[in-house]
């Protein structure tokens, strides 16, 4: 289509061409570039140092993993060509695929994998758990290494292939960096190379196809299979204003919008040049986190009372709006649509019962007039909307609510305080989480009920932890599934958190972009642009 901008651009290009010819220079070969607007600014490039989603997505481009999940959430070999498990279930032997090289063209060696696993297991909760079972990791030959366990453990491969924060394989020289120190050298093993000299924090991150990457031969399947980089260059752009992103996408200035606000989806679906795709069958779970250190939520009854305040449709209406983007009801702690979905124990969550909530709060020692401190984030629209619904529900149950508003950064700091609510502490706040990690008891960090070692809120239920531990030791996947019901039944007694709904975040892209994968998160291999 001819328009005035094309004419202006054409004039500019002609001027540049004339200049180049005058200087006797050849024009560079046209490269295939995808411009994607990402959900957050990439600030940190070390996926062990932070669990920020944007850094994990950066890591998916730059690093490869030993195993990766398929669409059934089963761990499948990725960098690993084959593996064996000894009959006693104590020794794994992994053989790497031939020809794997890092971005500096050095071969990927078993010693790199061992060092990467060690660094990761010092920080990641599932890695920490795995480390308690490992007695030794040793190099067998130039493509093989072994992992010896002190007792059989059912989640070795699930840990190595977890969807978020898996052990990304980096060169040994980088993986030997202490886990609390940031790695700033982005030399990786993945299908794209990070172009550090073009990185402009707050604006742009650039990736180039890694010509030495050897993809698997299988077709891509969720996060597993062949990671074929069809783009020469990928530009991640950070634009804080969503209206600007929408205009830029419609004008064709950008190709891919990673996290369009949910209230834009209807408009985007109606646009002839734009496709909208839900790439995440699991979606996002909203949760209310009670502080178990202070009354009335230090008692089971106090936390159970919260279950009776919930009308998930009301929460989802406020947070999402478009009914096609959320589940009408989901009582599964480990997400609906997941391998571990069950509705067991979720009856109190199905329909609000304010009288019952009031009675349970009284049993927990709540005295009318006692202030319940709710932290309300002002700069996160979804959290803010859900908190407003929560406040309304608490008031209907006769609770005196002390709403303390702040930006999310302040709340992430405030929520770590253990002081009583009237001395700088808190009673309730809202957050979200999602993906395959949420769908397993050992990697769902807000489900962790290890008291002092649990996330803020300090959920504490040794009985629940005992059930989780037994579940994790079970090597048979089918038997593990049965254990989930017992775990969830117990969770609805001690209530580490209250799930208030499950919703989906689609991506939007221009119609000349093809091969977008439903991998649970935006990934950029297999994507092509015409």
């Amino acid at each position, binding site marked *: 289509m001819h328009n005035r901008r094309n004419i202006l651009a054409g004039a500019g290009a002609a001027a540049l061409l004339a200049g180049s010819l005058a200087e006797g220079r050849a024009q560079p070969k046209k490269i295939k570039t995808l411009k994607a607007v990402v959900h957050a600014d990439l*600030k940190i490039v070390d996926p062990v140092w932070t669990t920020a989603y944007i850094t994990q997505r950066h890591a998916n481009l730059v690093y490869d993993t030993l195993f990766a999940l398929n669409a059934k959430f089963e761990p499948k070999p990725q960098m690993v060509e084959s593996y064996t498990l000894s009959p006693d279930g104590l020794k794994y032997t992994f053989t790497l695929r031939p020809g794997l090289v890092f971005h500096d063209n050095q071969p990927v060696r078993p010693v790199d994998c061992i060092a990467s696993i060690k660094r990761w297991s010092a920080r990641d909760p599932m890695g920490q758990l795995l480390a308690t079972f490992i007695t030794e990791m040793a190099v067998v030959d130039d493509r093989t290494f072994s992992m010896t366990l002190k007792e059989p453990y059912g989640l070795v491969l699930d840990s190595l292939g977890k969807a978020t924060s898996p052990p990304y394989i980096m060169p040994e020289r980088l993986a030997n960096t202490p886990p609390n120190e940031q790695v700033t050298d982005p030399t990786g093993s993945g299908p794209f190379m990070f172009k550090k000299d073009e990185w402009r924090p707050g604006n742009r991150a650039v990736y180039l196809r890694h010509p030495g990457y050897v993809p698997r031969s299988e077709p891509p399947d969720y996060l597993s299979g062949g990671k074929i980089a069809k783009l020469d260059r990928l530009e991640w752009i950070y634009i804080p204003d969503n209206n600007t992103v929408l205009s830029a996408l419609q004008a064709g200035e950008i190709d891919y919008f990673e996290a369009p606000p949910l209230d834009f989806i209807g408009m985007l679906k109606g646009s002839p040049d734009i496709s909208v795709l839900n790439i995440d069958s699991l979606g996002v779970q909203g949760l209310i986190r009670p502080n178990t250190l202070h009354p009335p939520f230090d008692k089971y009854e106090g936390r159970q009372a919260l279950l009776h305040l919930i009308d998930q449709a009301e929460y989802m209406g406020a947070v999402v709006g478009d009914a096609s983007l959320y589940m009408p009801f989901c009582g599964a702690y480990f997400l609906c649509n997941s391998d571990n979905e069950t509705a067991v124990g979720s009856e109190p969550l199905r329909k609000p019962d304010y009288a019952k909530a009031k009675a349970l709060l009284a049993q927990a020692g709540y005295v009318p007039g006692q202030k319940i401190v709710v932290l309300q984030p002002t700069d996160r629209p979804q959290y803010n909307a859900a908190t407003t619904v929560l406040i309304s529900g608490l008031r209907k149950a006769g609770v005196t609510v002390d709403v303390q508003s702040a930006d999310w950064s302040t709340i992430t700091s405030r929520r770590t305080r253990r002081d009583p609510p009237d001395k700088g502490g808190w009673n309730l706040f809202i957050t979200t989480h999602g993906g395959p990690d949420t769908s397993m008891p050992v990697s769902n960090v807000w489900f962790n009920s290890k008291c002092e*070692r649990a996330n803020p809120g300090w959920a504490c239920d040794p009985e629940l932890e005992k059930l989780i531990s037994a579940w994790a030791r079970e090597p048979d996947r089918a038997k593990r599934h049965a254990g989930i019901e017992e775990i969830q039944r117990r969770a609805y007694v001690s209530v580490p958190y209250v799930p208030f709904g499950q919703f989906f975040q689609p991506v939007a892209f221009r119609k000349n972009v093809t091969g977008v994968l439903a991998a649970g998160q935006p990934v950029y291999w297999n994507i092509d642009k015409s």
Partner: protein
Amino acid sequence: MLRIVLRRLGATIPVMLVVAVVVFLMLHLSAGDPAAIIAGDNATEEDIALLRKSLGLDRPLAEQFVQWIWQLAQGDLGVSIFNRVPVATMIAQRMEPTIALTVLTMTLAVSLAVPLGVLAAWRVGTWVDHTIMALAVAAFSCPVFLIGYALVQQFARTWKVLPVQGYTPLSEGLVPFLLHLALPAISLGLIYTALLARMTRSTMLEVLGEDYIRTARAKGLGVRQVLLQHGLRNAAVPIVTTIGLGIALLIGGVVVAESVFAIPGIGRLTVEALQQRDYPVIQGVILVSSLAYVLVNLLIDLSYLLLDPRIRY
């Protein structure tokens, strides 16, 4: 002149020291913990504590302050807590778009506002004056984001003659550089045009009532000479002051315009650093912005000497 410049530059040192102390204390005593933000939701308290230690944020405040001042004295603004990039590099990267936007905005504003203000003063009370002032009030009353969205809708989405967003450095060509800055410069420029036009008009009205203007007219000088040589020159001091303050404000960062047009400038850097509690970046940006403010004010003061020989320091 040189003595004045040196004396004024010397006076900036205590100002900058006060700014440094206030900024440091306000940041470190306010709520928020960069270690908790970096560690993310999956981190345990133990992880956060270890991270805080590795970042040196667990040390006594006085020790952190002394170290920062010592670094400053050596010309080192430190490194970002998050990406370990030197703060000076980050500011330099963000300063170019901000300065470019400032220059274009003020060029546009001055070239429109001064003639309009002079014209309105010359035609005071007529429809010309009323029209110019009505437009000025309208432009001044519109928020930048509203003007920005309206311009994007018309120029970028309907007519498709200008890009929606982004910034292209001058080194990549004058045409894309100007195309990308056109809409943000117009959005901001309209407001500064309105402000300057009103200031020019009111100052000119005051000057045009002076005896020396009547004398100039009585001598038979033409309109152009009376307005520009005798009128505008004598009205220049407050106009230049307003222009200078405008430049200082723009250099300090124009968050809304930078956000609406996705320009990676100083304003967005400041907001992002504040949201993340990236202390070295916030401290560096505020110091540099304060320095820019002081220097622009110095230039304004020096310009007075040229514009009005009666002024002495």
